[in-house]
């Protein structure tokens, strides 16, 4: 590639946003949208003007596309900023790594996993701690001096709980750091793998000719490296410890929530569990009894719904929010049935 090609790359980096938007212009004009330049344009494009009223799938799509385009911006900037178009595999790798940025460092899977735990009794740590001080902070204060001491006195149980929570949180952070270190190892290994993939292409006299193809090759390298780490004995141990330690901290927090809830006369998870456990046992006993009646020919244990209760196809789709309503409805129906049975 000669100097002209380099100039072309510099021009491309200056104009890539225009190139992208030239394809989108028709839609943009129809919608009356005016997009600013690339610096704020991506945010305009994905932050609202095209992305209003979108569902979860669309959000993911937007997120993926935005990260891809941000990479395009950085990557073309990398090439344009060099005095020559990369010629060797190492040069290309340098450009790719330098352009990677948050797109390729994002999605530490387990961290996000815990953050995403949004079900009723599985709120993420961050959510819990937004209203409270971080227990690690206590380590520099009064609790730190108590950690190594035996607890006693009227607040003995509170001291023990605080010590356990602070200790548990520290251990959890250590595990998270160990996990992140493995993720970093995978990321570094991915670069080696990408170099090999590029080398294999060159040996086979094949070439990557599009940004998407280069991106796909990078994803292959990342997945290969991640899989190797994720199947290692180190990862297995780190993963297990991370989950276990987080559960210990979570359990301590739950205990505290129970204590506080109990003080205000609120029903607690333990109490509900006790009731649900008894209900489950009663259901088993009732069904065992029904089986015995059935076996003795004293009645049908089966409650067969009327034949005429068709469920037409394509009407069974329910929005996610309907799940709970369905649950309530069926619970109501079950309760009615139980009453009929008891009667």
């Amino acid at each position: 590639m000669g100097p002209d090609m380099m100039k072309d790359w510099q021009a491309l980096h200056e104009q890539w946003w225009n190139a992208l938007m030239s394809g989108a212009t028709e839609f943009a004009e129809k919608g009356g949208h005016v997009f600013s330049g690339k610096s704020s344009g991506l945010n305009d494009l994905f932050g609202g003007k095209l992305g209003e009223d979108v569902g979860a799938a669309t959000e993911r799509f937007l997120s993926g596309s935005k990260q891809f385009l941000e990479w395009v911006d950085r990557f073309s900037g990398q090439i344009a900023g060099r005095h020559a178009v990369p010629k060797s595999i190492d040069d290309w790798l340098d450009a790719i790594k330098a352009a990677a940025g948050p797109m390729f460092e994002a999605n530490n899977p387990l961290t996000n996993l815990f953050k995403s735990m949004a079900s009723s009794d599985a709120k993420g740590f961050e959510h819990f701690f937004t209203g409270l001080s971080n227990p690690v902070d206590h380590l520099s204060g009064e609790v730190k001096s108590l950690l190594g001491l035996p607890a006693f006195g009227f607040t003995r149980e509170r001291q023990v709980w605080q010590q356990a929570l602070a200790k548990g949180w520290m251990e959890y952070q250590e595990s998270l750091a160990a996990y992140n270190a493995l993720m970093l190892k995978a990321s570094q290994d991915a670069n080696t793998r990408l170099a090999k993939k590029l080398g294999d292409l060159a040996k086979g006299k094949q070439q990557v000719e599009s940004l998407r193809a280069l991106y796909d090759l990078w994803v292959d390298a990342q997945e290969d490296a991640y899989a190797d780490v994720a199947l290692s004995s180190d990862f297995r141990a780190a993963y297990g410890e991370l989950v276990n330690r987080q559960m210990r901290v979570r359990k301590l927090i739950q205990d505290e929530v129970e204590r506080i809830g109990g003080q205000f006369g609120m029903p607690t998870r333990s109490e509900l569990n006790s009731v649900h456990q008894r209900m489950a046992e009663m259901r088993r006993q009732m069904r065992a009894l029904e089986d015995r009646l059935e076996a003795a020919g004293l009645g049908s244990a089966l409650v067969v719904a009327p034949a005429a209760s068709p469920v037409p196809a394509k009407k069974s789709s329910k929005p996610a929010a309907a799940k709970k309503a369905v649950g309530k409805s069926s619970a109501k129906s079950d309760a009615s049935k139980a009453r009929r049975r008891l009667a």
Partner: protein
Amino acid sequence: MINPVQLNPERVTEELSKFGEKLAKGMQSLKEVRDVHYGASDKEEVYREDKLRLYRFKSAHKTTEKVPLLIVYALVNRPYMVDLQDDRSIVKNLLAAGHDVYLIDWGYPDQSDRFLTLDDYINGYIRRCVQAVCKRHGLPSINILGICQGGAFSICYASLYPETVKNLITMVTPVDFQTPDNMLSHWVQDMDIDLFVDTLGNVPADLMNWCYLTLKPFRLLQQKYVGLTDILDNKAELENFLRMEKWIFDSPDQAGDAFRQFLKDFYQGNKLLKGGLSIGGKAIDTRRVSMPVLNIFAEQDHLVPPTASKALKGIVGTKDYTELSFKGGHIGIYVSGRAQREVPPAIDSWLRKRG
């Protein structure tokens, strides 16, 4: 050695322009597409218990097979995957082939179900559903199609009540839970499952989904959505994509105690393969699976690797064991065009030969 990257600025400009065009058109398509529906076949509820519903699919075709087929799906996703849409429905194809098809829908467990055990699911729900179908047809035994985790349950059930299972079909079913390529299994080996379940109660669906996504995080969390631009201007393909997304993330929470036993005995103990498994105090002896068995697995299955499924051959007592290898993945085996052409006809043909 040639330069492996040949990015021509002119071509990249064109690529970006096309990407922008697809993006813009696609956003318009996304705005126009609203909720996608699933379910190709009409069905009627024939039995219910707690949150479980047993459905019988209504067929527009003449039912020629006397022995009905009961589909036992996994707990971890919704069972409508087997009847997703008109051109992607194993059920529809089986109905067209003359089969009478039933399906267990487990529902969405809530915290009142956290103490449901595998005993409740296998000795309870599945057994009573089989009874209900047998009773409706006046038969002592029926055909069972167990899918994924539902397949593992079906193997347990068939070993406990072999007299009620005429033919057993397992599909993408894990049997050896500790094959070297099983990432999920690898991850849970050092987990304190008791602490996990005692803390969480039911295992949240979001957590389960995220765990599956992290098996291939770069592909499933990002590349897939970058690739979506390729089909955004095709309404039909976009709807198919959204339908799949809906299914993937429409997941029930997992009943705590059932999850506890499944993880400890199946994943950590690998007892279905190695022995020593008992459900509700009843020992599982897989040699009692003496009925004909058809085991279908997917060659590119990253959730249930083929070796995990093929282990079934070594533990069942039947002399009539058949394997069907499908060229596809764990999801493609239900919904791909190839699956529609290959899987239901294979099931139909195999069943017909066995009456």
